[in-house]
């Protein structure tokens, strides 16, 4: 459904993405792992045109777009097919939870307000925030804010949702609620591309895991392939660091 070819991106002299390819099928849940600075965020941002790639192609079903010099219309089209969940939520501070969810529908998609409100409420219900429609972001906990962020993405009914470390800004105790919501959405068959450090999520939910380092895809496969029998030395080293042997304690 989504194919990315040979994406390159530099900041100044630093080449961050050195030709990344990626294919995601409908219903896939793909998790991207990789050390800090390996270009995971940059990749996601390029797909959504929040960053302009130096070169590369994206194919979205019929739609084929050059990531470097897409027209305004193409950008708009791709953004209609994708949704982004940010690490630090990026909820609209001046809008209530419900308004956050409906904003893109009413203004971006020109859906009628009553209908949008309907969709918005359903999306918020789905993430367990039926009682927070009218709360402003500042009145919500981090976990609740991120759930609004997810509802905002889900409500757009995009072909694919991109998640950039959706739980890493949360207190450990709040991580669970967001992961649960993400699992539910995945189980409904939503296509998802997720950058995360939550190994449990990768193991339980992903059907493919991609390991990136230094701006290239080092290895990819099923969670079992990557976690239990990684082939590449770099992958092994990384997993050793983030999954200390100590974890065996909790048998």
């Amino acid at each position, binding site marked *: 459904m989504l194919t990315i070819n040979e994406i390159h991106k530099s900041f100044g002299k630093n080449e961050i993405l050195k030709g990344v390819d990626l294919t995601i099928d409908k219903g896939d849940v793909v998790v991207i792992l990789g050390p800090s600075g390996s270009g995971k965020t940059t990749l996601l941002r390029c797909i*959504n045109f929040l960053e302009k790639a130096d070169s590369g192609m994206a194919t979205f079903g019929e739609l084929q777009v050059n990531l470097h010099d897409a027209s305004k219309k193409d950008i708009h089209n791709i953004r209609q097919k994708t949704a982004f969940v940010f690490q630090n939520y990026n909820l609209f501070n001046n809008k209530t939870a419900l308004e956050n969810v409906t904003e893109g529908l009413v203004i971006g998609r020109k859906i009628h307000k009553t209908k949008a409100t309907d969709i918005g409420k359903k999306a918020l219900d789905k993430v367990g925030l039926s009682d927070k429609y009218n709360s402003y972001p500042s009145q919500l906990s981090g976990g609740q804010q991120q759930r609004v962020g997810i509802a905002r993405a889900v409500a757009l009914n995009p072909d694919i949702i991109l998640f950039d470390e959706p739980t890493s800004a949360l207190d450990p105790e709040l991580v669970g609620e967001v992961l649960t919501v993400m699992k539910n959405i995945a189980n409904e068959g939503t296509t998802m591309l997720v950058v995360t450090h939550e190994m449990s999520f990768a193991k339980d939910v992903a059907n493919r895991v991609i390991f990136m380092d230094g701006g290239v895809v080092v290895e990819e496969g099923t969670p079992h392939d990557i976690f239990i029998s990684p082939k590449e030395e770099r992958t092994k080293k990384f997993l050793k660091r983030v999954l200390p042997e100590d974890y065996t304690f909790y048998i």
Partner: protein
Amino acid sequence: MHNMEKYFDVSYIWNSLPILLPFLKVTFVVAGLSIIFGTFFGLILAMMKLGKSKIAQKIANFYITILRCTPSIVLLFLVYYGVPALAENFGLYLHDLNTAVFVVITFTLQFAAIMAEVIRSAYESIEKGQFEAAVSVGLSPFQAYRRIIFPQALVVALPNFGNGLIALLQEGSLAYTIGLIDIVGKANLIIAANYNTHALEIFIALALVYWILSILIEKFFGKLEKVFSKGKHTINTN
């Protein structure tokens, strides 16, 4: 005590107030116009500063530095005499214009420099993520500015805008030096009519008027900020 009694007569304060207050109208009109034009011009300067063009940035910065370094009284003078003289080179005869026009030009120039910084910092205080989130849900960049960035930047800018306004009003008190009869100008006429006696009382009356005015403005902007800042200071309602 005898010195005080001889020269200081409180009744001059109360008696001058009803004469002075009607002239606030002039002060307000001049300040109001300067604010409108200055804000608009300041917006352009802020856009120049935030934009990509290095030359535009340099020009805007140069302008702001010059205005920041010029005392109002000097600027007033240069505008009042310089603008008609310059215009003459283009065959325009501006000497007949009302003094108030030059006062408005002066404070428009000055207020624009202040507002440019206020607008720029308000804009920069809004996280980039707000814009990104807006376009990622399908808003056009213009819609993102209008519906997400602008309302939030406004809240940040409000207190500084209020401060700028108070500052403008005070600098405006110097317009009397080029002959504008606003509240300060009228105060000087009163003093002159008294042969320069009992000036202190009139000045105290002036100070009172300005003080109360600025407190009102501050209160007003405090209220305004509360109204606009929905979702910002409401944590305790949870």
